[in-house]
Structure formats: structure tokens, C-alpha cells
């Protein structure tokens, strides 16, 4: 699958403060199909906040996010379709089984995935035998791995990931990097906030947000 058709994401003069402190001012950068932007910076510098702004969950004080020329209407349906956001929380319903959780998430993303693909994805992230387990029983890392499965199945061209490797073991991190690689290879885009090195075989740019 390829997103090569996809226009580039551009951030234009984003500015946002929290309380007395300005998190970022007049941010300007573009992201082209097939490449990733890694957000770095010390704790509290504003990575999460920036991701939420790009996702359209938080309004910037000024500036805007554009998807190929067109201004990004926060939470506008057509554009929401293009973007998948994984936040700090695993976004699981504790009382639902793992695969119920996954299929719910995919339904909400309006992705149509058949049961086999779903099972395959869960197996690939190491939750094969835990498919029918209530999510609340999962370990911290396993919860994050459900998110990885979602990435594996997602057809959305733009990924916004907030510290996706938290609580993952070494093998999980490797798996994640492979997923990103494949996604970018297929012409997707990704904005990733992380403290880990992202050494993958695809164009990766970094921006550092000012220290907190």
C-alpha cells in the first residue's frame, strides 16, 4: 500500500503558552510523505502539547497546521480520517477483551479489518494467547502492545505518537521501529515524541523543543 498521493503536513507559526511559560513560539516546519519528525526535549518542554495541537485536540494561541495547503480544521472529519493519535494512556477499556478493544478502536477509526488480520496483528505483537483476556489484566507493556497492533493494522497516512515505547521491553521497541519503518516506506508520515534514539532506515528529522 502507498500513500505517495499524500500532501505534506506543514506547521505554520504555532504558538502556545501554559501558565506563565511559553512552551513553543512561532514553530515552522514541513513534513513530507515518507518521512518522520521526532519531537525531542527534556520533560515538560511541550512535546505532548504540540502533538495534541497537531491532532486538533488543543487549540493553539496562534498559528495553524496545514495538510497540503488546506488549513487543518481541528477535528474536521475528512482530515481526522488521515491521522492516528496514540497518547500517553493506552486508551483501552479495562473490561473489554483485548481483541474487542482492538476491533472497537478500528471501528472508530472507520478501518475495516477482518478477524484474521486482527488475530495476526495481535500475534505479531505477542498478545496471541492473550486475545481473549480482559484488558485490565494486561501488564503495562502489554497494554502498549495493543497500541502497536493498532498501528500494524492502521491505513492512516499520518501517525502522531506520544512516547510509544514507554514500558516496552527491548523486543517491543524493535517491533515498533519496524512498524514505523514500514509505514514510512509506504509513504506515510509520523510525528513521534520520544526520548529514545530512532535509528531506522527511513528519513527522520528531529526538532528539539526549548528546555522546560
Amino acid at each position, binding site marked *: 500500500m502507498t500513500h505517495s498521493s499524500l500532501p505534506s503536513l506543514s506547521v505554520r507559526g504555532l504558538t502556545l*503558552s501554559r501558565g*506563565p511559560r*511559553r512552551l513553543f513560539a512561532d514553530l515552522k516546519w514541513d513534513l513530507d510523505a515518507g518521512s518522520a519528525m521526532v519531537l525531542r526535549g527534556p520533560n515538560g518542554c511541550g512535546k505532548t502539547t504540540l502533538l495534541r495541537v497537531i491532532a486538533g485536540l488543543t487549540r493553539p*494561541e*496562534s498559528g495553524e497546521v496545514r495538510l497540503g495547503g488546506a488549513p487543518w480544521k481541528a477535528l474536521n472529519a475528512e482530515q481526522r480520517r488521515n491521522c492516528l493519535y496514540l497518547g500517553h494512556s493506552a486508551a483501552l477499556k479495562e473490561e473489554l477483551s483485548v481483541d474487542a478493544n482492538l476491533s472497537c478502536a478500528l471501528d472508530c477509526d472507520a478501518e475495516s479489518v477482518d478477524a484474521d488480520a486482527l488475530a495476526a496483528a495481535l500475534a505479531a505483537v505477542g498478545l496471541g494467547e492473550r486475545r481473549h483476556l480482559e484488558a485490565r489484566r494486561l501488564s503495562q507493556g502489554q497494554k502498549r502492545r495493543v497500541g502497536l497492533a493498532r498501528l500494524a493494522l492502521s491505513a492512516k497516512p499520518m501517525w502522531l505518537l506520544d512516547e510509544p515505547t514507554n514500558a516496552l521491553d527491548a523486543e517491543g521497541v524493535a517491533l515498533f521501529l519496524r512498524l514505523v519503518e514500514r509505514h514510512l516506506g509506504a509513504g506515510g508520515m509520523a510525528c513521534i515524541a520520544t526520548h529514545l534514539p530512532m535509528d531506522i532506515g527511513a528519513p527522520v528529522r528531529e526538532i528539539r523543543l526549548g528546555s522546560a
Partner: protein
Amino acid sequence: MKIYRYASPTLFYPLAGALWPWFAGFAAILGAVGLYMSFFVAPTDFQQGEVYRIIFIHVPSAWMGMFIYLVMAFYGVLALSFNTRISAMMMHALAPTGAMFTFIALLTGALWGRPTWGTYWIWDARMTSTLILLFLYLGFMALTHAIDDTRRADRAGALLAIVGSVNIPIIYFSVKWWNSLHQSTSVSPGTAPKMAQIMLITMLVMVFACWAYSIAMALVRVRALIREREAGAVLEGTQ
């Protein structure tokens, strides 16, 4: 955009500063005159005696109570549609005054009820709907106080005010209806002593006094709010 959102408070601040003393003055004068008239000029009511004079406080405050909520809703619409900070502030500034008037209406009403029909409270339609109006005010203030992020507080308050104001007529009507279902309520406060000319004038004076007071208070509170948010506004706005 920026101008829209940030400059207007800074422009409004001095304006409000210039205006509020005038309204405060009007309020004081009209209030004094009105009270004097209501207690010394207006004639004794032949059936209710002296107590009825409460009406000159009771009715205006009751009216203000209802009216101010609608004004809040109006500012709420402005705040949401043009997301102008100043109208949101006006909304916050008006709430306490409106609640106060509503409460005064309840209080005076209750005090009036004691002598006229021997109990502080009956579930008369108007009394009940006024009580519910007070709840709406309390709800609004509780919500906006519970939210510490001003942006969210503004917008949430605006939405609530709008929803509430849409409901006010429904509530008012439904309560009247409810009351008419149960005829057994013997007395109703509606039995207004026929308004003599002078009474009417007194009433009007008091109404205007309340108006002036409300405006003055609103302006003062808005100034306080602007001062409170100034630091934020400057930071967020320019630089």
C-alpha cells in the same frame, strides 16, 4: 484575530473604569429616592397594610433575577460564536448579581408570605420557578468555579448559560402548569394590590435603580477579571 481576542479587554478596561462610577451614582440616587417613595410617599394598602411595601423591592429584584440570566445567555452566544473574551467575562461578572437578586426575591417573598398567609413558603408557581432559577445560577457559578483553566471555564459557562436560558421559559411554563393542576393551593402571591399611579412610579424608579446597580457591579467585576487575567493576556497575546 489577535486584536479581536486580546486587545478588546485592554481597550474595555479604561472604558469600564470611566463608566461604572456613573452607574453606581445613578443606582445610589434612584435607590434612595425609590426607597423613600416606597416607604413614605406610597399610600398604605387598604387590605395588606404596610407589609405590601415589600413589593417595591420584591418585584424589581424578581424581574432582574430572570432578566440577568437571559443577558448572560446572550453574552454566552457572543463568547462562543466570536469567542470574544470580554463577553465571557461579562457573563461571569453578571452571575453573582443575578443570583443575588433572585435570592432577594425569594427572601422578600418569604418575608412577605409570613404576614400575608402565615407561612414563609408555599409551592406557588412563581415562587417555585424563581427557586429553580436560583439553582440555575448556582449551577453556573459552581461549574465556572470548578474549572480553573479560564478558556475552558469561559466556553463551558457560555454553553451552560445558553442551555439554561433555553430551558427557562419551559421551566417557567411547566411550573405554572403544574401549579394549575393542583388547585388546592389557596393563596397565590399574584394578588397584586391594584397599582395606584404613585405605586407604579415608585416601582419604576426601583426597577431603574436595580438596573443601574447591576450594570455598575458588572463593570466593576469585569475590571477585576481583566486585572486578574491581565498577566495571562499579555503573555499569550503579544511578544
